[in-house]
């Protein structure tokens, strides 16, 4: 038996884990550690780590900074929740109600998933502009007399966030629903449960893993969103992503920037834990009466 063959058949080829693992430690874990470390140090122009201090945190723990964090959190949470409610019927339709065009519809969903986000955001310029489609539609229905500019408004940011993150929620819910035997739903309806009861007692608990995956993915990634606020939000409102890049590129104040990242991540983790608790409570509640 040669060396390679022995490697494959024996249980002692653990060292093959090393290349990817060291890459991960070196370029993923250590950078994250660096962010934490830099927040605890004072920087000079010559030295990245001059002397340890908690001054950065003190400077960042102010009301305006927390206002930015909670504004971002609110935007991320409302996007995730709204997208969840919008995505569930689509996932349900794709999983149970359509057969022949399923591949085509999934393909249509996968395109916005993988097309450059800049292209999609740019596409909205033509809808949200003062002479764009949305403003024209508003005038046509008679909701407004003058053309409205939706660019550089929070409304525009919200709509585009929903557009970008909707497919991120449809996909995991669809995969969860697809595994469910539809006869369970039919049995529940046959036995006299209303559609609402069937949904809360059968469908929702069974698709909860997908709901959670999608929700947390959207919550976490949209919290640090940079492109949408910077391109569509105007320069009036700051979010976590925009203020961090401001600290790094314009202020060149890496200490405060990293301290801000630490604090906002802490808030995000707390929010994720609370939402996880809520989802678990909802699942428990819907299971309580079943057995």
């Amino acid at each position, binding site marked *: 038996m040669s060396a390679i063959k022995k490697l494959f*058949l024996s249980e002692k080829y653990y060292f093959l884990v090393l290349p990817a693992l060291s*890459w991960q430690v070196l370029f993923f874990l250590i950078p994250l550690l660096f962010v934490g470390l830099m927040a605890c140090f004072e920087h000079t122009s010559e030295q990245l780590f001059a002397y340890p201090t908690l001054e950065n945190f003190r400077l960042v723990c102010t009301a305006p900074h927390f206002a930015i964090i909670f504004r971002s959190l609110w935007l991320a949470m409302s996007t995730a929740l709204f997208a969840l409610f919008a995505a569930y019927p689509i996932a349900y339709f794709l999983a149970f109600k359509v057969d022949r065009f399923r591949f085509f519809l999934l393909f249509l969903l996968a395109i916005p998933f993988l097309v450059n986000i800049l292209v999609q955001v740019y596409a909205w310029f033509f809808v949200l502009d003062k002479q764009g489609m949305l403003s024209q539609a508003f005038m046509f229905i008679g909701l407004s007399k003058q053309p409205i500019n939706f660019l550089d408004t929070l409304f525009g940011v919200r709509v585009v966030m929903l557009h970008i993150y909707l497919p991120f929620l449809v996909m995991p819910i669809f995969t969860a629903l697809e595994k469910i035997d539809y006869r369970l739903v039919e049995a529940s309806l046959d036995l006299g449960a209303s559609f609402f009861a069937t949904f809360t007692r059968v469908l929702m608990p069974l698709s909860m893993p997908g709901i959670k995956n999608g929700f947390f993915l959207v919550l976490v990634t949209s919290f640090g969103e940079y492109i949408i606020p910077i391109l569509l939000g105007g320069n009036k409102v700051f979010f976590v992503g925009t203020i961090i890049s401001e600290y790094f590129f314009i202020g060149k104040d890496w200490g405060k920037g990293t301290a801000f990242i630490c604090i906002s991540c802490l808030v995000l983790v707390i929010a994720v834990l609370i939402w996880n608790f809520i989802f678990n409570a909802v699942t428990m509640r819907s299971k309580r009466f079943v057995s």
Partner: protein
Amino acid sequence: MIPAVLRKNLLSLYVLCAFLFLYIPIFVLVVYSFNQGEFPLQWQGFSLHWYHELFSLVEIWRAFQTSFIVGLSASILSLCLSMILLYGAKKFPYPVLSLFYVNILIPDIVLAVGLLSLFAFFWVPLGLVALIIGHTVLGLGFAIPILRARFDEMDDFLIEASYDLGASETYTFFYIVIPFMYPALFAAALLVMIVSFDDFLVSFFCAGSSTQTLSLYVFSMIRAGVSPTVNALSTIMLFISSVLVFVISWFNISGLEKKS
């Protein structure tokens, strides 16, 4: 009361609206890229003028070249690392693979800032190498779940049968393992390429001042204002992405059919 026909098709109608919501902006974008006029919000007739204009820009070709080199290197690197990792992780006592799932679960900006400070600390010059490193980290997060799903389906007896029938280990690897993994490898390679092309934040922080990827170029163009040239560029990017998505899903489906 809602008419019965409408009520029966309420769900289909809703899904139709959702897809319209997803596609109307993109449709408008594509239409205006063929507009003749300079001012992009008024239709003045069909023309390919802006595409012509686009292809004469030198910076765009340079940006595309950078993106292509970075994307290709990142996808080759992450595929090799993932395959080696999967071999090693098979009997590794700890769930080492789940460590990599975090890569796509943290906000991009945190990773970008971390990489920037790491490179600054070790005096690594920002640019091509820094970009390849960062995109490989992102790529691992996408490649490992895909490859793992396929790798777990592989039967160990397949390998042992190959050895029993006298095949060498290199032969087994290249004629049994790789062909079995082929659909997943292909899909993962394309996906990492797309992710690398689409990535903005890691490129934004790690590219430095002299290197420009396609995303960074598009960003600077959009910040400069709405122009039909950007529409033309976006349309081309949209087209390429759709073709790649189609190829990936077609490959996955044919792989599934073979299995069943």
